[in-house]
């Protein structure tokens, strides 16, 4: 690394230095995750239990009637929906992120991000990417098994643009999940205790993301559900894959999802800066 006389790096060097830091955070966080591999593997397996109960529940509701539909979903599609939602949640759920941020604000360990030349959100983001990568390695087998067991209900592969849109939406759902949870964690700058807020968010997101039931079944009671970012956490990727969103609407759907990411990122930045200012004026 060459440093100019002013101590500043050229643009390319600056970029390289930043990428190297992200890579190292990712690597270190992966190593950290692997320390608790047994616990992690067990909790990963336990997470597959709800899908089994969901399938039993819906088979009871449909009473094995393969013709009957509910807001456009037949039994097979319903099963597929919940499998895909499970997959989307594997990207968008962020266990412990909000609580972790809130705790670091409350106990002062957030200080290290203020003292060191490092960006907290960036640091946590790459930390979380590592967390997810380890999760996918461990969960790949169980995921494949569940999909294989339910293969009779699954529709065939859609056209490739739909698959691409699905993957894009899935990846973006990670960013949406991260940004919503980090924002909730940052609220701890203003309120000391945010655990009940996190609980409320969990409940709301369970409904509003389509995790509990497809949003088509919900929208008659909550008409504004389509205008909230929560649907990207579970519903949207699944709906894309099942062809519930017409192909011509897909680009717009993805653009809106990307716009939500930008908006949430901006709100996160503002919340962090204001929060730190408040923190600094309350005693650090």
């Amino acid at each position, binding site marked *: 690394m060459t440093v100019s006389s002013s101590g500043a790096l050229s643009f390319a060097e600056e970029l390289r230095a930043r990428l*190297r830091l992200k890579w190292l955070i990712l690597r270190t966080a992966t*190593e950290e995750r692997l320390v*608790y591999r047994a616990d992690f593997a067990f909790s990963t397996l336990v997470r597959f239990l709800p899908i089994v109960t969901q399938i039993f529940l819906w088979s009871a509701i449909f009473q094995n009637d393969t013709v009957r539909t509910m807001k456009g979903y037949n039994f097979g599609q319903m099963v597929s929906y919940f499998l895909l939602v499970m997959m989307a949640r594997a990207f968008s759920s962020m266990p412990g992120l909000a609580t972790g941020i809130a705790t670091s604000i409350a106990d002062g*360990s957030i*200080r290290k991000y*203020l*003292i060191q*030349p490092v960006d907290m959100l960036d640091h946590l983001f790459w930390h979380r990417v590592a967390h997810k990568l380890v999760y996918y390695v461990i969960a790949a087998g169980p995921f494949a098994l569940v999909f294989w067991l339910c293969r009779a209900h699954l529709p065939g592969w859609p056209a490739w643009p739909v698959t691409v849109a699905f993957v894009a939406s899935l990846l973006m759902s990670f960013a949406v999940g991260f940004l919503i949870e980090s924002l909730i964690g940052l609220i701890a700058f203003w309120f000391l205790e945010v655990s009940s807020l996190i609980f409320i968010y969990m409940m709301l997101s369970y409904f509003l993301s389509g995790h509990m039931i497809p949003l088509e079944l919900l929208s008659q009671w909550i008409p504004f559900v389509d205008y909230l970012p929560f649907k990207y956490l579970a519903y949207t990727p699944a709906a894309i894959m099942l062809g519930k969103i017409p192909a011509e609407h897909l680009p717009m759907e993805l653009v809106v999802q990307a716009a939500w990411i930008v908006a949430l990122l901006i709100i996160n930045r503002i919340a962090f800066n204001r929060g730190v200012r408040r923190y*600094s004026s309350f005693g650090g």
Partner: protein
Amino acid sequence: MAAIEVRELCREYKVFRKREGLMASVRGLFHREHTIVSAVRNVSFTIEEGEMVAFLGPNGAGKTTTLKLLSGLVVPSSGTATVLGHVPWKREDAYRRRFSLVTGQKEQLWWDLPAQESFRLHKEIYRIPAEDYRRRLDELTDLLEVRRLMSQPVRELSLGERMRMELIAALLHRPDVLFLDEPTIGLDVVSQRRVQEFLRHYQREQHITVILTSHYMKDVEALCERAIVINKGIVIHDGPLAAIIDRFSRHKIIELQFSDNGCPDGLERFGRIIETRPPRVRIQVEKQRVSECLATILAENSVDDISVVERPLEDVIAELFSSDDAARAAK
């Protein structure tokens, strides 16, 4: 050249108050009472490059708040400060790469991983060239005698070992300014001494500027020549450490060894008897009465050995801080 310049720095906090009882709690839902507490009041000082200065004061005196102000964690209510030409609370990366704050809370290392992983991350965070990193890490691990612990998860290290690792993490990027907030808190005597010796050696070698706060006067005496004493947010002394005793101690200690194996009665009239181990006695005597007391004792008794010593710094500081109006004492 001045590394740290602080001018009339003030920091006030709003502290919410809650009266006792259920009704007060209910009232508190609608109207919260608060008081303004001054943690730091008109603090000014200058620290030259390469100086090692002790920051002394009782709990709540404003030491940590001052360090937080200088590390950019806290914004002042009024006043100015520059460290290495930077305003700390702007938190510019250019400044953050040039200082370190080490607290007794030890929070820089990844708990579940060996310390070397955290150090590697620091290398990237602070953009330390590979060659410098290797050399510094080598040097620091040798000086602090932790080479064999480098691959052990941090959570398995003892408190003293962890503190030494924290110091490495704080010094890898070779900061020009180091803030040490109670670095030896909770350490045993051996670890304390090791950290002390390291700090003394390192500061002399690297000529870095250090502010140290500690409740262990042994740390302070071993490391610093200059002390800034702060109480209730006000600087009450800024000068040589030794001058604290001259300035604030109203007593000296007379150590006597009598010729016969006993101790005479009535020594209490000279001052407070600190220790009696016949034929030796230690008496704390008011400074201005020392010569008068000595004359009387020598006239009345047969004495083998006699010496007059200063009180330990720790006692003087304790007395200073326990007096209700330490600020007035300074005047």
